């Protein structure tokens, strides 16, 4: 009890922080999951889309401020940045690079996407330099909320409390609805399940792949764009993001949209508690969670066993 009353507030703050962090990690992981499902290529450069989304959002936001436009525009600008990154980078990278390594040796796929990651990392430095870039207009715009916690209150930014988790929940619900209820969504699921059978049913798998890759890229960029008001962007952020979203996807099980949300929450909260209470464990906690889950359920928390044959 003594420890809890002393650290209660910190605990609450860690939970709120973890929630906001999980929201942005979820966006990246769910994009990775979609792309892997359709292409069976583990895209190491996926984290770069997160970083580029973040930098682009900051640049657009700063341009809005410089042009003297109203500051509420900074919020839709985050979405615009994500869509822009998806549309500009997604199709050419899929067409010129990833399509060529589809169905090839995993080692080759890793090498090619790793090379792409290195190139994109340098492109970021070329465009945005190596100084930290921060942009917190959306954060200031919405102010703070006093979150009641026992007898105390925790002042927390409305952006992290509402906008981040809100957009993540919208993405989760929207994506689940899209994949289940629309023809395009079912076509993506069909290609994910069995590319050849889907092709024999008349589905143009190459087109579906490009569409999915573009969406996945935009989702990663959205994760970055949403994170930029809360974190300063520095070179290397793409690398730490991709590793973390690998952990989320592995913990959830491949192909699991809702599972990715739960495991992003688990890992986001775990990491956040570590940051507040045992900072030296911050880096390992996500992987400890992943290892613990995979030891008990090798197919991931929500991964389903193979379809029965007889």
């Amino acid at each position, binding site marked *: 009890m003594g420890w809890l009353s002393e650290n209660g507030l910190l605990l609450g703050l860690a939970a709120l922080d973890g929630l906001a962090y999980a929201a942005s990690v979820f966006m990246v992981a769910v994009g990775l999951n979609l792309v892997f499902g359709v292409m069976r290529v583990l895209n190491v450069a996926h984290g770069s889309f997160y970083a580029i989304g973040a930098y682009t959002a900051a640049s657009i936001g700063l341009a809005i401020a410089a042009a003297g436009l109203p500051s509420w525009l900074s919020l839709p600008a985050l979405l615009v940045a994500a869509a822009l990154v998806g549309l500009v980078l997604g199709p050419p990278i899929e067409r010129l690079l990833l399509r060529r390594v589809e169905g090839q040796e995993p080692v080759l796929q890793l090498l090619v996407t790793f090379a792409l990651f290195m190139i994109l990392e340098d492109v970021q430095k070329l465009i945005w330099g190596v100084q930290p870039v921060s942009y917190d207009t959306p954060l200031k715009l919405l102010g703070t909320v006093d979150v009641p916690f026992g007898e105390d209150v925790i002042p927390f930014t409305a952006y992290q409390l509402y906008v981040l988790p809100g957009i993540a929940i919208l993405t989760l619900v929207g994506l689940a609805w899209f994949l289940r209820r629309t*023809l395009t969504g*079912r*076509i993506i*699921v*069909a290609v994910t*399940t*069995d590319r*050849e*059978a*889907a*092709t*024999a*049913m*008349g*589905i*143009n*798998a190459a087109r579906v792949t490009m569409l999915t890759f573009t969406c996945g890229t935009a989702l990663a960029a959205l994760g970055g764009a949403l994170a930029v008001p809360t974190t300063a962007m520095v070179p290397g952020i793409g690398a730490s993001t991709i590793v973390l979203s690998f952990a989320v996807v592995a913990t959830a099980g491949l192909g699991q949209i809702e599972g990715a949300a739960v495991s992003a929450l688990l890992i986001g909260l775990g990491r956040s508690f570590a940051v507040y209470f045992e900072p030296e464990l911050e880096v390992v906690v996500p992987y400890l969670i992943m290892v613990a889950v995979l030891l008990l359920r090798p197919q991931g928390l929500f991964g*389903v066993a193979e*379809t*029965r*044959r*007889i």
Partner: protein
Amino acid sequence: MLRLEGVSVDIAGAPVLRNVSLVVPPGGRVALIGRNGAGKTTTLRALMGLLPIKAGRITVDGQDCAGIPAHHRAKLGIGYAPEERRLFGSFTVQENMVLPAEVLKLPPDEIARRLEGVYTLLPELRGFAPRKAAGLSGGQGKMVALGRALMVGTRAVLLDEPFQGLAPALALRYAEALGRLHHALPDVAILITESNPELLRPLVEATYVIERGEIGVG
């Protein structure tokens, strides 16, 4: 009319089909008999455009298929029920069957009409309709795969080893369904592969035997 003329296919550098010629006339029922690894599945996959052919040509009603990508073969009216069913497990049975028709952008009333036709031919599917395909038994799944092939197979259906692994009672029901199919849709050709030549004799009009990628006549 489906026609293969001197078709050769290599997989990973090894010849799997050699100079295969085969004709499935309109409304005809043709068996392709061969042991495992003889090239039956490869023949059907080549017809569906899922494998590049090294030599020879494939025509559908005289039209050369060389320039028709795999995802446009269904549009030619060819339904395909692959070996191992290959259903989409997270979809219901009905969603599985309707998908190829939706992909072809058939009008909803045409899809409903075809679906009704499939349920009339394969009445047991009506009961499974809302069930997830992943939960079906192997035999039930084969029925669904046949239904799915019929949704777009207005010209022909290619059935890859449908009797493989079926319990005798189910195999009988499946054979009866094929008989009903021929009476109900006499224009739809059936190309069916099997390893046991006796099983298909009463069902087909012509039989090809394939051995090590080469066709003889049985």
